[in-house]
C-alpha cells in the first residue's frame, strides 16, 4: 500500500498527456521467456518470444520462438521436458507436473540455432492460504467528467506467517460472467426490404455465459517487510466496469502465489514501469533484468523471468446487487448467443454461493 500510494501520479496545473511520435532506434530481437510453474497440477505454460522495436502503433511485432527444446530440472535431478502445442512458441509441461515446495528449479532452453540458455535456480516457497475474499465498488475520476471510471476492487484476507520472509504475487484467473441481453428489443436491420428498423422481438435468449478475453492481465505484489506475521487485507485485483460484466454475476479466481525475492524484485520493476505516468516523481526507467542467462554467449541479453511459485486459489462471485456503483449498462438488443464466444450453459466450475 505504501508503495502504491507513492506511485500514484502527481501532476499539477494544466498538464496533459497525449500520444507522441518519436524516433525510436530499431529494436533488438532478444529472446524473451515468460511463464510460471506452480505446485498445482499442470500443464504449466512457458512462452518463448523475440522482442522488437518499441515504437508507434504499427512498429514492432513480437514473434514466437518455435521448435526449441525446453526442459525443467529440479534440485533432486529430475528432468521434465516441455512440448510445444498448437499455439506456436507455447511450451507446456505434462499435465501431471507439479512443483514440490522446498525444491528449486532450473529452466533449460536450446534453440533451433543450437544456442543454449538456462535460468538461475528458483526456489519454491510455501504460500499461506487465502482466508477469504471481499469486493467493493470504486469510482475514479477521469479527464471526462461525465464518465467517471467505475470498477470493482477485490481484497484478499490472509494471515502472514511470522517465521519466514514472504513475497506475494497475485493474479486473477480467467473471468466468466452472465451476459444479459434483451432479445425482446430486437429490430430488423436497416436494409430490410419491407420493414427496416421495425421491431421484431425474439424469444431467445436473454441469459448467456461469456468469457473474458482482455489482453492486459493486472497483477499485484507485496513483501511482508511491513506486515510480517500479521493478518492482512490487501487489494489484489481491480476489474473495470464496462457496462456488461457486472450486469448480474461475475466470476473470477484469485491466485495468491509465493515467489522468490529475486522474482519479487523483477515484478516490482515491471509494476514500476506499468505505473509510469511521466510525472516529476517517476523514477527513471529501469533496466528490467531477468533470471535467464545465455550459456553459449554469456553476454547475450535474455529478457523475461521464469517464476516458480506455490499457489492458493479461491473463486469469487461478484453480484450486481452488492455493488454500490455502476456505469450506464450496455444494452444488447439481440439474442445473447450472437455475441461471439458465449454459451447457454454455465462452465462446469460455475457454482455461485446461494444465500
Amino acid at each position, binding site marked *: 500500500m505504501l508503495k502504491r500510494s507513492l506511485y500514484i501520479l502527481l501532476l499539477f496545473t494544466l498538464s496533459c498527456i497525449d*500520444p507522441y511520435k518519436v524516433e525510436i532506434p530499431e529494436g533488438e530481437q532478444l529472446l524473451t521467456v515468460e511463464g510460471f510453474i506452480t505446485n498445482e497440477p499442470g500443464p504449466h505454460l512457458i512462452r518463448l518470444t523475440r522482442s522488437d522495436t518499441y*515504437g508507434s502503433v504499427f512498429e514492432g511485432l513480437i514473434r514466437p520462438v518455435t521448435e526449441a527444446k525446453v526442459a525443467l530440472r529440479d534440485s533432486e535431478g529430475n528432468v521434465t521436458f516441455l512440448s510445444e502445442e498448437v499455439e506456436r512458441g507455447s511450451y507446456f509441461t505434462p499435465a501431471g507436473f507439479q512443483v514440490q515446495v522446498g525444491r528449486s528449479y532450473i529452466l533449460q532452453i536450446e534453440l533451433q540455432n543450437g544456442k543454449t540458455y538456462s535460468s538461475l535456480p528458483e526456489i519454491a516457497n510455501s504460500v499461506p492460504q487465502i482466508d477469504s475474499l471481499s469486493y467493493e465498488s470504486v469510482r475514479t475520476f477521469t479527464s471526462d467528467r461525465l464518465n467517471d471510471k467505475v470498477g470493482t476492487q477485490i481484497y484478499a484476507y490472509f494471515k502472514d506467517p511470522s517465521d519466514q520472509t514472504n513475497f506475494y504475487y497475485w493474479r486473477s484467473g480467467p473471468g466468466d460472467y452472465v451476459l444479459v441481453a434483451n432479445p425482446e428489443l430486437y429490430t430488423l436491420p436497416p436494409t430490410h426490404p419491407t420493414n427496416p428498423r421495425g421491431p421484431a422481438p425474439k424469444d431467445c435468449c436473454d441469459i448467456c455465459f461469456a468469457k473474458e478475453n482482455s489482453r492486459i492481465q493486472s497483477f499485484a505484489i507485496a513483501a511482508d517487510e511491513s506486515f510480517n506475521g500479521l493478518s492482512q487485507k490487501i487489494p489484489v485485483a481491480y476489474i473495470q466496469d464496462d457496462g456488461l460484466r457486472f450486469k448480474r454475476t461475475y466470476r473470477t479466481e484469485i491466485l495468491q502465489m509465493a515467489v522468490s525475492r529475486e522474482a519479487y524484485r523483477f515484478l516490482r520493476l515491471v509494476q514500476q514501469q506499468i505505473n509510469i505516468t511521466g510525472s516529476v516523481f*517517476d523514477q527513471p526507467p*529501469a533496466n528490467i533484468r531477468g533470471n535467464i542467462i545465455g550459456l553459449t554467449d554469456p553476454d547475450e541479453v535474455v529478457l523475461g523471468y521464469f517464476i516458480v511459485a506455490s499457489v492458493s486459489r479461491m473463486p469469487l462471485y461478484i453480484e450486481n446487487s452488492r455493488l454500490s456503483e455502476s456505469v450506464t449498462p450496455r444494452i444488447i438488443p439481440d439474442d445473447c448467443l450472437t455475441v461471439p464466444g458465449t454459451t447457454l450453459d454455465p462452465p462446469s466450475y460455475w457454482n455461485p454461493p446461494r444465500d
Partner: protein
Amino acid sequence: MRKYLLLLVLFSVCHLTAYSQQKTVIGRDIGQLKDIKIGGRLTDQITGEALVGATVTVRELNKTEVTNTNGSFNLVLDRAEYVLEIRYVGYETIIYPFVAVGDGRITLTMIQEDFDLDDVVVFGSDPEKNIRSTEMGAVSINMNTLKELPPFLGEVDIIRSIATLPGVSQAGEASSGLNVRGGGADQNLILFAGAPVYNPSHLFGLFTAFNPDMVNEFTLYKAIIPTKFGGRGSSILDITPRSGSLDRWGGDFMVGTVSGKASLNGPIIKNHLSAKVGFRGSYINWLLNSLNNPDLRSSNANFNDMNGILYGEINENHNVTYSFYRSYDDFALASDTTISWTNMSHTLRYQGKFGERTNVDVIGFYTEYDFSIFNKSGINNFDLQSGIQDLGLRLNFTYNLGERNKISFGADSKKITIRPGDLIPLPSDGESSVLPQSVQNEFGRESGVYAQHELEFGEKFGISYGLRYDFYQYFGPRTVREYAPNLPISNGTVIGERTYGDGELIQSYDGLGPRASFRYSFDSKTSIKGGYNRMYQFIHLISNTATIAPTDVWKLSDQFFKPQIVDQLSLGVYKNFKGNIFETSVEVYYKDIQNVIDYKDGARLLLQNNLETEIIPGQGKAYGAEFYVKKNLGRTTGWASYTYSRTFRRVITPFEEEIVNDGEWYPANFDKPHDLTLIGNYKLATNASFSATFSYSTGRPVSFPEAKFDFAGNSLAYFPNRNLQRLPDFHRLDISFNFKLKGKGLFYQGDWTFAIMNVYGRKNPYSIFFADQPGSPPQPYRLAILGVPLPTLSYSVKF
C-alpha cells in the same frame, strides 16, 4: 555642433542642480583637516525601512560605498566640499552636496520612483562593480529588480528568477531544484537569514517557499565561493530577510489568482526596535478542482509561509536581528494519501563594529525540515514521518588592514540530525495490519575554520585568496553492516554487523578547500578575472528523480558515502559599454566532481536502512561557457544570457552488474547544452510597464527503450542504457503587464499585474514515457506540465 550644444545644456543643468541646493555643513569645526569620519544612514521616506545595498558615491574622489544591512555607510574624508550621489534600485537618485569640517552624521531618506521613464536602474549596486570587484560568478539581486520581471502565477519568484541567469537551470517546468553549472539539486546551500533550508518549494516546486516581500536581497555564488561558506558543492544562495521600519508603521497586502499575502512592519521602540511579520497563504484548491486531470480533481493542496523579524539597534555600531521562518505544505493525492512538509528556522544574528576596522558577525541558528506521508485509505493506514534538524553557530571577523586590503576569518559548526523515516501504523478497520518500522537516525557534525585575504594593488590588479578546512564526523548510536570485500554491496553480501554506542565516532572526513581568484582591469570598463575553488559536501540527496521530490532521502556521509569533492576552474572577461548602460560578460568553467552517486535500477529508497545497497559510486564532470549582456538603464532594460554547457556522469565499479552505459561518460539528467534566456522590460508610461521572458533550451536527456517484450499480457520496454536520447527542445514565452494606480497621495499605491505564461501554448514535454494502457496499443506518450497559455491577475497595495 549639435553635440556641443547638448553638452552645454547638460553642463548647465548640472550647474543648476549644484547651485540650487543649499550646501550642508557636516561636523563641528575644530579645525580638523584630515581623517574626518562621516557616518550616514539611508531609509525609505515613506516606510522608514533601511535601504540595504544602495551605493553612495563621492563624486570628487570617484569613491563608492555600499550601505550595509541597516542602511548605514561610512566615509573617511579630508576637509573639503563634496557632492554625494546616492543610487538605489527603484528609488530616485539623490544628489547631496555638503562640506565636511569634522566627524558627523548624515541621515538621508529616499523616495521610491514611480516608473521614472529615463532613469531606471536594474541592478542597484555600484554600476562598475562587475568590473572592479574580484568577486566572480556572484550575482546579487535586489527584490526591487525582481519585481520588474514577469511574475509566475501572479507573483515574482526567487528560484525561478535565479534560473534565468547564465549557468543556472532547472530540470523542468515544475521542479524546485536548481542545477548550477552541472551540479545536482542537492549541491546548493540555500540559506535564509543564515539558516539552511532543505526544501525551498511550495507545491512540489510550483512556487518558491520564500515570500518575496519578506526578502531584502539574495546573492547566488556559483564560481568563486567565499571561504566563509562551505558544505555544498556547487553554489550558495544567501537570502537576507528585510527588517521592519524603525520609524513608522506600514504594511502591504496582495491578492492573486492562487495565493494572497499580507505584511505589517513598524517600530516597537522608535529608532531602536522594529518588527516585521508576513504571512502568505494559498487558495489553490478551486484551481485543482477545476482541472481536467482526474487525480488533481480529487486532490487538495495547501501551502503557507510566515516570517517574523525583530531588529534591534543598540546603537549605530551594534545591532541584533532575530528571524523566524516557517513554510508549510500539504498535498492530498487522489484523496487518501497526504504528503506534507514543513521548513522552520530560528536565527539570531549579531553584527557589530569595533573601532573603524573590525566587524564582527555572529549567527546562531536552528532549522528543522519535517516531512510526512499520511495514509488514511482505510487499509493499512500509516503515517511515515521523517525530518532533519540542524543546530549551528557561525562566527565571522573582518578586519580592514587598509583601504583596499581586508582580511576575514572565522569558524562555523553545526550538528545535523536526520530522522530518515518512522512508519507509524494507524488503526484501520479494527486492528492495525502494518508493523511499525523505523530507520536508524543519523548524527553528524560539520565544522569549518577559514581565512580569506582580499588585496588590491592599485586600480588595476586585485587578488583574493583563502583557505577553508572542513572537518566532518559521523556518530553513533548506529548499527553498521559489513560487506564482503571484492563483492558488490548488496543484501546478499553482508558478512557482519557492528554496533556503535551513543556518541561514538563511526567515521570522519576532513579536507582543505583552497579558493583563489584574481582580477586585472585593463581600464575602468574592462577586466579579466579567474579563479579556482574546492568544495566539500557531506550530505547527499538520495533521489532518483530529476528534481527534488517528496520521496527523496537525505543521507549523511558515512563509510559507504564518501564526501563529494568539487573542483572548479573559471575564467571570465567583463566589459561595460556606453557609460555602464550595457554590462557584458563571458565566463568559462570546468568542474570535476568526485563521489557523486548514481542509482541501481529500481532502487528502493524509502524506509531503507541500508541505502548503500541501492547506489553505485560515480564521478562527474561539467564544463561550459556563459555569455551575458545586460542593459541597466533606459526605457528598455533587461538581459540576455546564453549558456553552452555539458555535464556528464560515469559509474566506476569493478562489478559488471553495476556498470551503467558500459562504464562510459553519459549525460546527467539535467544536461542541457544550449540554454538561452531573454528578459526585457519596457516602460510604457510613467505608471505602466510591460515585460517579457523568453527561454529556450535543449531538451533534457531521457532513455528510450531498445526493445519491447511481453510479460503477463503487458508490453514492457527494455532500457539497457541511460540518457542516450533527448526530449524535444524547450521554449516558452511569458509576458506581463504592470499598471500602477495613482492618486490618494503617497500612502495608497495599488499595483495591478496581469500576466500570461506560455503565451503561444507550447506543449513542452516534461517527459516522454512508454506505456501499455488498456484500450490503446503500447506507444510513447508525452507529458506536458503547462500545455496551454495560463493567465493570472494580482493586485497589491502598500500602505
